[in-house]
């Protein structure tokens, strides 16, 4: 399982990258953390002619908060997401997601930009950024472009990135004291891709009423699936058992999962309902829980 003969070039700035991309065109493949790309190369499943290493481009690094928006550079490693104080404060969902991604050695290399660009339907981070209502900052020789995360994932392993675009950063709107988020998944073993997972974010006001719920499932479709009808079943309602049941029921129309090695579509639907209950029930008021 040796990688096929291939070229390698390193870009240390965006300008250098644009030059290399212009030179090699479609034969070039970007290399960030490489944790997915290099595994697929081992199987000779893809055949790029040259890898363009972007890991030393400073402009793609860094985590900062500006005007209440958390900006996470594309080269931010999963391990950094898990331990960065700004992420923990402004996007705790991502900090919670990091330990679910593979294993420590993978998290030390894999990057958020790489994960989003690869768009594996069972991956955690694409679902998280959709749940958080994030914006993907794409950059190309033509300049910057901002794509809402919801519109970024366009199909199985497909994104809205143009061939000459790369992800520069992810921007995440600030959280409110009423914001609640949670990520849970069912995986065969720790670190495996999930059979089904749910990244959820919503607001709960003082009377327990839900606003702007976003339930985003992964491992159950061709990409992260924003369950619009389940969200609608919650929006504006007091979060109680009945509301959760309504959201679960609405999933029937939100999800059209494929079968995979682990089981049939019915299993994924079933697990999505279970996850919905498990994600939301900790938010129930004490009186509800006691029932």
């Amino acid at each position, binding site marked *: *399982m*040796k*990688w*096929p*003969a291939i070229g390698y070039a390193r870009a240390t700035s965006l300008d250098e990258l644009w030059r290399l991309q212009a030179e090699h065109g479609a034969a070039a493949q970007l290399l960030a953390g490489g944790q997915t790309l290099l595994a697929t190369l081992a*199987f*000779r499943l893809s055949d790029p002619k040259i890898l363009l290493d972007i890991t030393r481009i400073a402009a793609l690094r860094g985590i900062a908060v500006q005007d209440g928006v958390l900006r996470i550079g594309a080269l931010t490693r999963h391990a950094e997401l898990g331990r960065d104080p700004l992420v923990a404060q402004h996007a705790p969902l991502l900090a919670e997601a990091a330990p679910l991604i593979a294993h420590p050695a993978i998290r030390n290399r894999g990057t958020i930009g790489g994960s989003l660009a690869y768009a594996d339907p069972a991956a955690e981070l694409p679902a998280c950024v959709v749940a958080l209502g994030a914006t993907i900052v794409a950059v190309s020789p033509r300049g910057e472009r901002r794509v809402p995360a919801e519109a970024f994932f366009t199909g199985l392993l497909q994104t809205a990135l143009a061939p000459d675009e790369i992800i520069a950063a992810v921007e995440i709107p600030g959280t409110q004291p009423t914001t609640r988020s949670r990520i849970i998944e*069912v995986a*065969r*073993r*720790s*670190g*495996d*891709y999930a*059979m089904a997972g749910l990244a959820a974010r919503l607001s709960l006001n003082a009377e327990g009423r839900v606003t702007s719920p976003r339930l985003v499932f992964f491992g159950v479709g061709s990409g992260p699936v924003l369950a619009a009808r389940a969200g609608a079943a919650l929006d504006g309602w007091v979060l109680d058992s009945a509301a959760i049941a309504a959201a679960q029921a609405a999933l029937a129309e939100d999800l059209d999962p494929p079968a995979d*090695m*682990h*089981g*049939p579509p*019915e*299993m994924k*639907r*079933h*697990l999505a309902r*279970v996850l919905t*209950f*498990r994600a939301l029930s900790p938010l129930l008021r004490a009186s509800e829980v006691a029932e």
Partner: protein
Amino acid sequence: MNEIRTADSLGLSREDLPNSYIGRSVPRPNLPKLVQGRATYTDDVVLPRMLHAAFYRSPHAHARILSIDSAAAMLVPGVVRVFTGADIAKVCDPWVAVLAHLKGMKSAPQYALPLDRATWQGEALVAVVADSRAAAEDGVAALEVTFDPLPAQTDMATALAPGAVVIHPELGDNLAFQRTAVQGDVEAAFASAHKVVEARFVSARHTGVTLEPRSIIADFSRADDTLTVHLATQAPHMIQSVLATQLHLEEGRVRVICKDVGGSFGIKVHVYPDEVAVAAISRILGRPVKFIADRFESFGSDIHARDHVITGRIGVDAQGKILAFDIDDLTGIGPYSVYPRTSAVEGNQVVNLCGGPYDFANYRCSTTVVLQNKVPTCQYRAVGHPIATAVTEGLVDMAAHAIGMDPIEMRRRNMLRDDAYPYTSPAGMRFEGLSHHASLAKLLELVPVDRIRADQTAKRHKGVYRGLGFAAFIELTNPSPFMYGIGGARISAQDGATVRMDPDGSVVVASGVTEQGQGTETILAQIVAHGVGVAVNKVRVVTGDTQNTPYGGGTWACRGAGIGGEAALQSAIALKDQILHVAGTMLQASPATLDIMLGEVVDKTTGTPRISLAEIGRVVYFRGDTLPKDLPREFVQTRHYITKEYPFAFTNGIQACWVEVDTATGMVKVLEHWCVEDCGRVINPMLVDEQVRGGIVQGLGGALYEHCVYDEQGNLLTTTMADYLVPMAAEMPEIHVGHVETPTKESLLGAKGAGEAGTAGAPGALMNAINDALRPLGAVVTEQPFTPARILRALDAI
């Protein structure tokens, strides 16, 4: 016989008998190199002018090869040569894997690389050799091979039906082997039974996933007409014989060297066509050729195992007494029986082992072994045992439930009594001495059953479903020639050890059994240190070299300690006698009054040191002139050992498994696991314990995760470690191990095998635990692996 002086047996402390090593948890002397990265696995060996092989493997389950065009491959930089089946067949004969004592068994001639037809996806068809593995793979990618795809016979259930694709037309059908064992009057027993319970069990296709893949360097030298093979193997002498025969070499001109091996579990005891092809290529080129299977090709070419569907019936009377078992086993083994052990043995073992722990009179068990277009299956850790145990123990639990009896009580009532031996089982297996009741009693000391049952009840009220399951088992170890030799295979059941003392008083033992990581070299050192009377760190061990070790069978079927260990003990005792004889002459004392303690010859009664082994060594080796002329001074002694009284030394044990089933997700969490096993004399408890744990984890892995999944066309879908799931640390439980010791009386050492007990019992215990958890919900699972989908289906949740 059978009385070894150990500190324990004499009622002494270790301080009183400091070189008593039998039964002592000695750390393995070869561990520091392993944890420091200083081991020498086959892939670490680099030879001058060495080439690397890669194989073009069949993309089809069944296809005629129409053409092979290597022109483009030969242009790839680094590629040296391309070999087809016809090229290899010029120097290498095909083989047929049958054993004469498995009556009616048939298989077809198998070539190292097939001549014109591929019969499973992943079968090596063409070899490319190049100056690096990467270049060889580039060459493989550049090969142009055309096929005429043929219909594939994949489903074992239809393999014998009309219309089946007959994989080898010259055989007439796809039946490789069939055997039925009958004892008593089964139908009458069922007719008279108070309850009859029937179930269908499925044991999934697994593979071994040794972390070190199959690895070989073949180095044929025209200069001395010698083939030297560096190989990760369990059976160096067997491979020596096979390669010599197939390649028309004198056996003595083939040397197999096996340094460190990265796990075997039966995977590395077989003859693999691609490895034989590498040897043939080296024979042709006169250069060393290395082949290290990559993980992708391992999944499609390492042997698979345990692809069985079994229906079973048990009949019991009103008191829970087992009256009869009736079991039908069907297994698919791929397109060829694997050489030379054959692929009929797993099914045969199911017939031998079902019902094993119990006292019952009526037995019928049949196995039907069929060919199919999938990876060949063969012996893999605990051959047949996990299947027989799961079926037996599943039926016993179901019968207990049917009559409302506690599963522990059910077993207590039916297990063979500890004083019932010698005993011949309904399947015809002869047991020298087992300890089912003592083992159960020991298990119940370890498992807090009352607390667990109380917790189980309390948790159920909260919607948490936990279950406790048991599985008793027997295990076949220390095989005699009855396993392979009588069938015509050149597989030695005998093993030898040579023990020598060097001038500095240190001792070297060379043994025909091999180290696969289980600690063989450590126990050999312990046994020899014990037998001679030296500190264990004064013993060095040589294994894994056909030119430098006594002829032997190697490591399989749990024979290392029981067979190889006894040979080592006998030769150590012989060396000690020889040393004492010389010492007696030097000291003018009767050898009978002397002993050896930690490298010093001592007065036996007082323990007073008289002379060191180093001093004896100095005199014998350098001043032999000072000794009497006729004094024998052979400080090298060799003894061989083979079991003679019993075909196999059976062991026994029982496991318990405590699980929680998430009934919403179908996920199973193993909370805790226990095993009590009786492997006879325990030589090193620490090694046995972790080996048992490893075996249990392998069994749990098979029962929870591991599955070689095929589609209907015979495409293997699980070809990466992301798809074929192995057990990892996070999901595996804490495992408690206890021992009962019933030494075999056949040997002085009294050791039987321990390596497969864990794997034998774990799946059955886990299945019973899951079903115990699910029982209030009316769900039962009997199909391994117990995946979330299967559990949710059993619960009618999906």
